């Protein structure tokens, strides 16, 4: 996985002529006097993995949240497929996140009172899947991620890497078309980080799920197809991994 190409544009050209699954244009967002995003353009195609890197406070997580419809930009648009996400109200965006998106975070994302399998069933239940079917699917995902023996354990009984893989299973359980991961390996050692990233990227590729992840770690970024570097709220460098 060597970096073979570096481009200096803020938005990549469409790949193979197909329309991007997620398309952001002219994103601007300020928190008070601080401009977190200053005119960001980005495209993400189905099945593609993009790593957003940059120093702390550069706007990586803010960009991720705007793309996922968690935060609303002051200016600019985000289109998901044929839906203009930035025109939806909170309920509509919540529904879209629940139906189409998956999320993985750095830490503290599993409900401590629920077993691994119950944690994975939560988004399925929210999506209206019956409990029995939800458990079957959750067990299946845990099995695929090598966690079959951990399914009845509580998060407190899991290692950091195992807990993060449970979070990946939860994110992918609803078979989302987009997965957003905010520093998914930030709290893990290098071995656990590698296990998690392998599990995440393989599962995503199998399901043809597009992934946008933020990270400080070049080794994590290296699992992506593309890397964009954010600095002071702008995409300064874009590059492709092969």
């Amino acid at each position, binding site marked *: 996985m060597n970096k073979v190409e570096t481009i200096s544009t803020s938005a990549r050209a469409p790949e193979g002529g197909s329309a991007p699954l997620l398309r952001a244009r002219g994103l601007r967002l300020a928190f008070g006097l601080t401009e977190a995003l200053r005119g960001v353009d980005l495209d993400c195609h189905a099945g593609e993995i993009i790593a957003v890197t940059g120093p702390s406070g550069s706007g990586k997580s803010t960009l991720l949240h705007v793309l996922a419809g968690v935060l609303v930009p002051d200016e600019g648009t985000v289109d998901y497929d044929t839906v203009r996400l930035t025109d939806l109200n909170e309920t509509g965006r*919540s529904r879209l996140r629940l139906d189409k998106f998956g999320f993985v975070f750095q830490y503290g994302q599993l409900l401590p009172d629920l077993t691994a399998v119950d944690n994975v069933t939560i988004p399925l239940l929210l999506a209206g899947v019956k409990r029995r079917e939800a458990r079957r699917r959750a067990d299946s995902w845990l099995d695929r991620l090598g966690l079959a023996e951990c399914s009845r354990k509580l998060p*407190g009984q899991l290692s950091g890497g195992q807990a993060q893989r449970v979070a990946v299973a939860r994110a992918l359980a609803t078979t989302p078309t987009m997965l957003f991961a905010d520093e998914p390996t930030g709290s893990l050692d290098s071995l656990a980080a590698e296990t998690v990233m392998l599990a995440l990227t393989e599962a995503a590729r199998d399901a043809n799920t597009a992934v946008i992840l933020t990270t400080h770690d070049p080794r994590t970024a290296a699992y992506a197809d593309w890397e964009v570097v954010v600095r002071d709220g702008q995409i300064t460098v874009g590059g492709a991994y092969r």
Partner: protein
Amino acid sequence: MRLFTLTRLVTAEGRGAAGRLVGMAGGIAVGVALLLLLLGAYGGITSRSERLSWPDLHHGELTQVPDPAAAAPTAGSVLAATSLEHFDGREIVRVDIVATPDSTVVVPGVGQPPAAGTYHASPALTALIEANPTDILGSRYGTRAGSIDEAGLAGPDSLVVVTGTTTENLRSSGYGRAGSVLLGGGAWSVTEFRGVSYPSSNYRTITIIGAIAILLPVLILVGIVTRLGAATRAERFAALRLIGATPRRVAAIAATETGVTSLVGALAGVALAWLLIPVAALVEIDDGRLFRTDLTVPPSTVLIVVASVVAGCTAVAGWRTSRARIGPLGGSRERTERRPTALGIVPLIAGVVVLLGATTAALRHTPLPHTDRILIAGFVLLLVGLMAAGPVLTYWIARIAARGAHRTAGVIAMNRIQQHPRATFRAVSGLVAAIFLVSVFSAGITTVAEESLTEDSAHLSPTTLIASLSSPPDDASAAASGITAVTAAASRIARTDGVTATAIGYSHPESGSVFTAADAALVGLPTPEGASHIQVTGGFFGDGPLVTRPAATPDPRPGILVVATDGTTHSVERARTAILGSKLDLSSPPRTQADHESARLHTWADRYANLGHLGVLVATLISAVSLAVSSIAAILDRKRVLGLLRLMGMPASTVRRVIVAEAALPLATVFALCVGLGILTAWCLIAGLTEGRRTITWLPPSYYLILATSLALAATAVISTFRTARTSTTIEATRIG
């Protein structure tokens, strides 16, 4: 000083932290205020009993005077007799005193004994006298010479009169009971009027139970507020550990934070108690309202309470923090509670056994020694047992419910309850205690309701006055003049406005009184056909009906005077005043069956109902606050993970459902148990303390109203947390941006 600075920096910065500390201080303030009011009330009731019991006369230096007319007061002693009068269903304690002008005997609240023909009345009685025509009330006592101050009164509502009289007019009355004080009867030569703290074990039992009932929710509230924001605090302490603070230093900071907060809270509680005294003084307990000064707690007690609360909270906070083992890498892993075992229901069963055992023995008239104490112990054991059994039952039910949960909220809530049965139950434990107490007190109060006033053909009208006459002297001529006097007085009384008839009952050699059939019919006594005279047996104020049968010509000695009225209050009281002013030699003041029933029922009703309602009100309100605080704390402790779930698309309504489910399940689990055990406890207390003379009956509609209000308060408490739940689980609140 560095510790304080560090504590302030670590724990008190930021809006959230300030809110948490304010919540903690507020909870402690409420707890301390109620504790001080309870201590004040307990002390006040004791000192009040000393003030109100002096008319009993038996507690001072005294000698019985068989014939007051033949006795004479001295400078160092007075002749005194107390009696119980009634006015419109209220009791008036009357103390008649014969004293010399230079008497040195001090009458409590009055000072120098009043001169013959004058009286000193309590402010409440003075107001009553002034509000009514003289012939109805005022003329009973003579000329007003002054008031009785607090030193001689139970409370601001006390109706007491101290009248100055002469040896000829000093009545030697029979025994009576004014509220909780027995009036000894007879006439006495008294050198000192002195009251005592009356030793009513039943009363103390109920008082202690009431105090426990209020204190328990207070303790639960304090326990809950001191845990507020535990997760946030753990994160801050973890950061401290990371930069090198030792576990001991962290525990010291936690203890300092709680110590300072609880000190502020305790001092605020002292101020709150002081502000609440006028409100608390409005509550009628036992013999009426207390004076405000009764509720004041001595400074030494205030100091002890403040110091104990602060020391207790500080020690517990330090202990909890050191036990939490907060490491340098953050809030470590969440502690899962030890799974509750069936042993938790043992205290509950033990409580039931103790209560039933003591009651059964009392019902068999072979009461155990110290039945009252055993019943208190049983009550406490049952209450503690409910608290101990609650988590066990909640855990069992949650396990079953978790299997059937199909919605997100159900899965989240039932699993949390399974992992934290004690914490979850703690949130509703105050309410559980309140429902239990509501049931105890409401069922207890039914003992009054079942003894309603009856009026049928075998009873006199409740507004007919009956006055017992003293036995005439054996001397024939004196007896004859006595009989003439009674007949003349009866005729005069019959002419009083509102009096419809009078009847003189003559002594029967065996039992009861003998009336002429004509007189009996006029006052409403059932009269067998054809009889010229009838014998009436059975108590005029007894529980059973009067029995009438034909009788021979009676013994000429009059024993009782019956005065029938048109039933209006004015007529009854005017007739009563006329009897009292008739110079008849009465062995007991005139009273109606309504007076008798009112006096008999009033005592229990006041003791039980007012304490009960107060306890229930306070317990329910505090419990609702506890539930709200606890629900908020449970959400705040999970705000990050719930916020992340909301970020993933979980609607806020799911968080609301989680809160409702976590509050509803433990409550629903023990609801029926609380009601059942509450009723059982009430029966045991009533039947056990009275050896079966009293029992309970169906719960009144007010019970269901109180129960519904309690549940509505709980629902309000839960709903009030919705906004906090929504705002604290927003995407911004998870601080991941």
